[in-house]
């Protein structure tokens, strides 16, 4: 319905209730408006206070008033204390500006109850463009408003709940992180204490065999310490860079121990393994490197025990390959399988599902390890 552009002769609207109610009776157009279920009124802005000059039955049903109570009155009686002031201002502006307007406004019935009114106001002018009336229709949209309110309230409640839950989770994470740091701190300190105990004990040992045993034990503990230090230095404690570990190990075992006559060859791709594999891999590499240092190089006439030691790490698809090699005496007369070091290496290999092989490198020994390492584990140099 496009009421806005209505250009009825002014007289048509004079067939209204307060004027000549009977005159409109034969007019099907007026009859339709009287009978429609849509609440409608017409006001006369040319009279003081823009009073209602026509109201259909639907309007009376909606508002609860009798016709004689509304005709001649300003629509103001529909407003009440909770009516939005800005909606009222919009209506005022539309009337004074002779503009049409669509607005949702809280109105009051005669009995004081309220309803949401989707109000539509439109000015009606005559042929000369002079303002004659305002036409207004009212639609009770209380149900829609209620569900709008419910949705807004639900949304607010939901957002609040999400915020609360987020805060809880953040606090829990914070507590977990603190705990992790605390545990990490203790583990590191304890590893340091264990090393200290072994070191101090070996200093007082007079027996050379015992000294050697303790020093082998210290090396193993220190390999674990290095794993732990490296693991918790990185941002992601679930990943472990074996190549970095190998570098630390070699620098620790060679450069620092003063065995400068042994030259290391490192060929290390950055390789990341899951943290749970870090310890067995590190222990295995430690055993192989210390074995080469201890057993491969025989004393020369000048008293030195020089030679080359090599560590190579690569990851062809889905596998981690580690090679520890030396150019020493080889393992032909190794007294092998019963010794603890060898058993440890083989057991760790089994744990890691690794294939391990000792090859004659002529001269020296090349130990080749190959184990599955998920294809998703990409090297990471950070």
């Amino acid at each position, binding site marked *: 319905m496009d009421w806005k552009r209505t250009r009825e002769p002014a007289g048509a609207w004079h067939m209204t209730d307060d004027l000549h109610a009977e005159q409109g009776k034969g007019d099907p157009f007026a009859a339709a408006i009287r009978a429609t279920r849509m609440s409608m009124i017409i006001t006369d802005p040319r009279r003081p206070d823009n009073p209602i000059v026509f109201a259909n039955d639907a309007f009376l049903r909606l508002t609860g008033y009798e016709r004689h109570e509304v005709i001649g009155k300003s629509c103001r009686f529909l407003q009440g204390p909770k009516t939005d002031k800005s909606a009222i201002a919009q209506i005022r502006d539309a009337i004074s500006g002779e503009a049409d307007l669509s607005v949702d406004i809280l109105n009051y019935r005669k009995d004081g109850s309220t309803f949401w009114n989707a109000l539509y106001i439109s000015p009606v002018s005559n042929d000369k463009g002079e303002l004659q009336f305002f036409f207004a229709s009212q639609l009770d949209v209380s149900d829609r408003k209620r569900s709008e309110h419910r949705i807004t309230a639900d949304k607010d409640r939901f957002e609040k709940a999400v915020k609360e839950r987020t805060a809880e989770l953040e606090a829990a994470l914070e507590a977990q992180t603190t705990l992790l740091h605390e545990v990490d701190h203790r583990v590191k300190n304890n*590893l*340091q*204490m264990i090393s200290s105990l072994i070191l101090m004990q070996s200093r007082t040992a007079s027996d050379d065999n015992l000294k050697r045993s303790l020093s082998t034990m210290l090396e193993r503990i220190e390999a674990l*310490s*290095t794993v732990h*230090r490296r693991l918790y230095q990185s941002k992601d404690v679930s990943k472990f860079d074996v190549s970095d570990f190998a570098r630390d190990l070699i620098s*620790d075992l060679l*450069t*620092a121990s003063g065995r400068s006559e042994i030259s290391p060859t490192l060929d290390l791709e950055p390789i990341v393994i899951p943290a749970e594999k870090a310890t067995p891999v590190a222990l295995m590499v430690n055993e192989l490197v210390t074995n080469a240092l201890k057993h491969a190089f025989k004393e020369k006439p000048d008293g030195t025990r020089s030679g080359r030691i090599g560590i190579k790490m690569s990851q062809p698809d889905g596998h981690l390959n580690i090679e520890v090699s030396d150019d020493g005496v080889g393992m032909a007369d190794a007294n092998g399988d019963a010794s603890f070091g060898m058993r440890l290496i083989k057991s760790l290999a089994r744990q890691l599902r690794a294939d391990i092989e000792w090859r004659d490198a002529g001269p020296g020994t090349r130990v080749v390890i190959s184990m599955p390492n998920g294809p998703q584990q990409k090297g990471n140099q950070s």
Partner: protein
Amino acid sequence: MIGPLKVLIVEDEALLAMELESLVEDAGHSVVGWATSLAEAKDMVDSTRADIAFVDIHLTDGPTGVDVAEYIGDRKNSMVVFMTANPKRIPDHFAGAIGVIAKPYTMNGFTSALRYLQEGVRRPPPTSERPAGFTLSPAFETVWAPAT
């Protein structure tokens, strides 16, 4: 030969202090004192002369190792190296310290750190390789290990 170092140990764990003392002496240096708290460390700093202090962050009276470093730094009578299992506790400016030896360190790791520090204190910058587990503070990084 460059001169040996006089070392102050600030460490609340007796066993670790004992071990450090042995390692320091094995390397030909001497230990001038052992403190376990901020107060003890202050007394010792005021009454002895050390070339370098190894300072744990967590002492008997709490995380006061940084305060020890600041106290030493104010008096400028010794250099400081932190030794801690929790390097994240060290402030970004390192309270003037040279760097940090992360625990758990290895025997060789500590010994080579000593050699490196001896060079750095006596004849800076150090020439030997920086040991694994030793991190320089940003300030010393620019002086001792400028990017080439």
